[in-house]
């Protein structure tokens, strides 16, 4: 009896690591999965229609403190880049839009906030957690993937976006 329990506990991490090979996951270099979502102004955004532009996609929710923390720096990156060549889409992942409207107003966020209450885009992008951000290049290829928050207005990210814009 004791041995069975001990064996179960010991084998658990092994199972996790061993079965993890060849899993469903979205990698840099894959074509960015398409989605069609409506923003808070009622405009429909279809990713495949944005080819020729660099698209920054951020998944967030209002109950996620680090997501809220990185929003202002995203806003700064958004305003410092050319609007006709760069789009930033903040996708609200399974959350209430009324809460999001309050937060974006509070923080002065002007980028489009797309409602993904059903987690449609989130599922396609195999989200690990929140926040999670992706960069899609002009050809519609996923070129960057960030799990977790970042200081988006730092020169590093500005230069990174410029590199993809000027490619």
């Amino acid at each position: 009896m004791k041995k069975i329990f001990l064996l179960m506990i010991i084998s658990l991490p092994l199972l996790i690591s061993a079965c993890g090979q060849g899993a469903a996951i979205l990698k840099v270099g894959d074509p960015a999965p398409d989605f069609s979502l409506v923003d808070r102004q009622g405009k429909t955004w279809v990713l495949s229609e944005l080819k020729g532009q660099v698209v920054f996609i951020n998944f967030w929710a209002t109950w996620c403190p680090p997501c809220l923390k990185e929003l202002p720096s995203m806003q700064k990156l958004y305003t410092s880049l050319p609007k006709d060549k760069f789009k930033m889409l903040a996708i609200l992942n399974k959350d209430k839009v009324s809460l999001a409207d309050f937060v974006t107003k509070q923080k002065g966020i002007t980028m489009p906030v797309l409602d993904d209450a059903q987690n449609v885009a989130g599922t396609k992008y195999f989200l690990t957690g929140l926040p999670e951000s992706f960069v899609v290049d002009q050809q519609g290829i996923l070129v960057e993937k960030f799990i977790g928050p970042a200081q988006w207005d730092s020169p590093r990210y500005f230069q990174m976006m410029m590199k993809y814009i000027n490619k």
Partner: protein
Amino acid sequence: MDVMRKWVQVLFFFMTNGYWKFPYTRAIYKGPLKVICSPGLNCYSCPASTTYCPIGSLQQLFAGIRISIETGQFFIGFYVIGTMGVIGGFVGRMVCGWACPFGLFQELIHKIPSPKFGIWPVLRYFKYGLLIFMVVLLPLFAVDEFGTGEPWFCKYFCPAGTLEAGIPMIILQPALRMNLGWIFALKVFILVFFIVWAVLSSRPFCRTACPLGAFYALFSRVKLVRLNLDLNLCTHCQACHDVCPMGVRFNESPDDLECISCLACTKACKANAINLEIGGIPIVNQPKRPELKGV
């Protein structure tokens, strides 16, 4: 009885951690079952977890309480507290002994041979401090300029979260390793500390640090299912002292806040003075033992 308890513990382990597709999906379970409360401390960011953790949920709701109130949606945490209270009112800390996966984990590693030590009783009050400060007050009041708090207990302390969610997620998603900082190092240290302590002492996390156990402990005198001491039968032989995994001296304090109703003492009591009762009606009567050795 102890074998039955083990099976109940295993059953609850798999009921609250029943999603085993995660090695393929590399993500947590996202289905509707997560609206159900896990009775024990079981991280809902654990890939296998099928229920929500009341302590985690409560902190998340408290951290966002200002935003929710200002938008006219009163997510105060009544549903979570209500569920916890119903569980507490029925069985109280019996959850710790029968349904908590982290309690089971500590019990199992305590079987590793080593010198065994007791725990200084004063340390038991630490968990009430954790409940009050890290689960309630800090998420409610330590807020940024926009009024958003943080889940302090989950973020800075919870070893169950590190074991069930932090480490598995890092194995599943190697990209996460870049993000690890001092907070994760602190949490791993706390986990290792409690694992080592659990080998040396019985259930140290439950006894000193579990905020959920602290909450359920408040129901020790008012819960429906409880252990009853028959003072007419008790011989004060102290047989119940040594067997108690929580360090309770049952014959001295039968309504002890630490009692997890694991029934170890009912088995040890040769006078059959301790019985499990539901609403005052005894349900487990130990068979009378003719030999009364060592009384």
